[in-house]
């Protein structure tokens, strides 16, 4: 923690608590907006290192924009969860000790789960449960790793690259859950689409980027992550190409874009680390805008599937315009912010001579262009359509429009003036984005890919299907395995219970009617009915000669013992 200054993350957490307890709506709105603004100022003057300050600034900035987008929300618990989630994310970034990181990490998981379930649908409840289970698993892995670090005497967060002990792998696995590194990625596409519209803007901005921050801080230069990062970038774009649910599609784009960051930080060096940090910064801006626009579309139409939407550009021009800008930014169009940070990442790959990564990341850019910039813009906003989608324009309130315009404007400003982002990066590397070869490269790539899209446009419409992800393993086989195990346990319990019941019933029978023992031992015919439990009179019946023999034997034994002792 910081010793000499009011912790910026705590300011946001306090904002959340005040939002929760403030009954008066106007006051609550003021607190909800003022909190992140004050936090932004606190981050700017905190004097923390450049990486921390950069993430702190962008987290507070998107918290301000998302607060404007969400200001009309009546649900106090949701607003409080959002502010606390933002606060805990900023706190993880500002944490300097393992314990501080862990505490806010868990708070992030719980508060983000609250955001998922805030939409109060059955699907959200189920998805939220799966989300919480995955993040608790991640938190526990992190805890285990941190316990080992503490046992080794290390209390401050440090770079672990190259250590490769148990703590290294446990902490890496814990952080990988948050950074959505496959196969621990499915929670994004599973939970984000079920959250509230405003909640998704927060979720798309914080969890994965906190993961990236921790990877930069703890695991920069880890070669293994390069393979995962490049795979994420290409695979996320491919999944987005076939996805039909609007917000699930953006979930896959988060994975794809985080893939760029993971690959970049894995390349290491000043350019790689700066590329990852700058891309996280820019990604939060354009992905926040895209998710705000998606939220506006879903709120206004009540539909979330691309196959049910179409021709919205005329009906929702502001949303369509902001979406167009942000979707061009995510692909990496020149003069927009995605281009600025991709130049650093591609530059790192080229200058470190990792040519396969350079080619595959270029391929992922083409995938991003086709799946967002072309596919969503064409099928949802600008393309020809026979569908007449009903639009409730009241759902896109003025504050939401302002938030979207600020987001899109930020993408343009940071794209036109790349030094804003470059100056914030840890090493201040200049990506020289506006050289002729960079600009012409992207124009050629995108124009050629657009030709292919136009050739194949009729078949690019997504089908009304769902796409399986790694959550399949815990939603299908694991479910059957758990059902099977509980059925087995239940059968064992029933069988044991029945056997014990039979044993006690029989024992009871023999205890009630000792005749039966003699009967079994000596093979004597019973005089009483066999089932003595059901016959209450059995004990009242004359015992007969069997008891006389028993008594005689017993007396004889007693006499023998008496005589033997006193001889």
């Amino acid at each position, binding site marked *: 923690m910081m010793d000499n200054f009011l912790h910026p993350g705590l300011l946001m957490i306090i904002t959340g608590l005040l939002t929760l307890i403030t009954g008066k709506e106007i006051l609550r709105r003021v607190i909800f907006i003022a909190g992140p603004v004050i936090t932004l100022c606190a981050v700017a003057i905190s004097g923390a290192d450049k990486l921390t300050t950069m993430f702190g600034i962008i987290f507070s900035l998107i918290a301000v924009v998302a607060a404007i987008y969400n200001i009309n929300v009546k649900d106090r618990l949701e607003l409080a969860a959002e502010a606390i989630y933002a606060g805990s994310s900023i706190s993880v970034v500002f944490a300097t000790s393992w314990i501080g990181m862990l505490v806010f990490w868990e708070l992030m998981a719980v508060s983000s789960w609250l955001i998922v379930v805030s939409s109060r649908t059955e699907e959200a409840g189920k998805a939220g449960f799966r989300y919480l289970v995955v993040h608790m698993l991640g938190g526990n892995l992190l805890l285990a790793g941190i316990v080992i670090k503490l046992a080794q005497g290390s209390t401050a967060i440090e770079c672990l690259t190259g250590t490769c002990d148990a703590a290294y792998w446990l902490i890496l696995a814990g952080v990988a859950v948050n950074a959505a590194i496959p196969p621990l990625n499915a929670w994004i596409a599973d939970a984000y689409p079920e959250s509230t519209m405003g909640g998704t803007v927060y979720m798309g901005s914080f969890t994965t980027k906190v993961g990236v921050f921790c990877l930069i801080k703890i695991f920069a230069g880890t070669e293994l992550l390069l393979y995962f990062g490049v795979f994420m970038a290409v695979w996320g*774009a491919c999944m987005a190409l076939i996805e039909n649910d609007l917000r699930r599609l953006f979930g896959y784009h988060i994975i794809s874009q985080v893939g760029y960051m993971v690959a970049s930080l894995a390349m290491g060096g000043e350019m790689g680390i700066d590329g990852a940090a700058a891309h996280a910064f820019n990604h939060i801006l354009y992905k926040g805008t895209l998710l705000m626009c998606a939220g506006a579309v879903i709120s206004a139409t009540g539909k979330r599937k691309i196959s049910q939407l179409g021709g919205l550009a005329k009906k929702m021009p502001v949303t369509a315009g902001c979406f167009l800008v942000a979707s061009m930014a995510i692909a990496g169009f020149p003069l927009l912010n995605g281009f600025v940070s991709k130049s650093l990442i591609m530059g790192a790959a080229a200058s470190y001579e990792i040519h396969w990564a350079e080619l595959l990341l270029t391929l992922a850019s*083409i995938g991003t262009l086709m799946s967002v910039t072309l596919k969503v813009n064409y099928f949802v906003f600008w393309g020809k359509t026979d569908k007449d989608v009903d639009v409730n324009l009241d759902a896109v309130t003025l504050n939401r429009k302002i938030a979207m315009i600020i987001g899109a404007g930020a993408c343009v400003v940071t794209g036109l003036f790349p030094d804003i982002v470059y100056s914030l990066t840890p090493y201040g590397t200049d990506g020289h984005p506006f*050289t002729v070869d960079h600009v*012409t490269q992207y*124009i*050629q790539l*995108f124009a050629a890919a657009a030709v*292919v899209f136009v050739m194949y446009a009729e078949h690019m419409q997504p089908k009304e299907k769902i796409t399986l992800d790694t959550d399949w393993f815990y939603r299908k086989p694991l479910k059957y395995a758990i059902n099977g195990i509980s059925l087995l346990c239940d059968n064992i319990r029933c069988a044991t219970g029945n056997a014990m019941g039979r044993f006690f019933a029989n024992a009871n029978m023999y205890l009630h009617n000792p005749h039966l023992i003699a009967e079994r031992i000596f093979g004597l015919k019973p005089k009483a009915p066999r089932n003595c439990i059901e016959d209450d009179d059995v004990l009242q019946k004359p015992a007969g000669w069997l008891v006389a023999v028993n008594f005689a034997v017993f007396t004889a034994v007693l006499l023998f013992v008496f005589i033997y002792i006193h001889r």
Partner: protein
Amino acid sequence: MLDKKKIYFILGVIIAVALIAEYCFAHPHYHMIWNTVPGADIVLGFAGAWLLILLAKKIMAGLLQRKESYYDEGGERHDG
């Protein structure tokens, strides 16, 4: 909305201008074939786009896509 021929024409003009600009003014920083040969990115963009469509639409869609009620055991999936 524009018809396909007009879009091809516009994209063709953009590609031509970018190609000429690259040929005349670009000074590549790196030395791999896709950095140095003018127009290599056109081939890369075209081939890459087809490769991704093949991968996503033909292979991944066939392997991974299921009907929407797949996880619901008979019920309809939540539909906003």
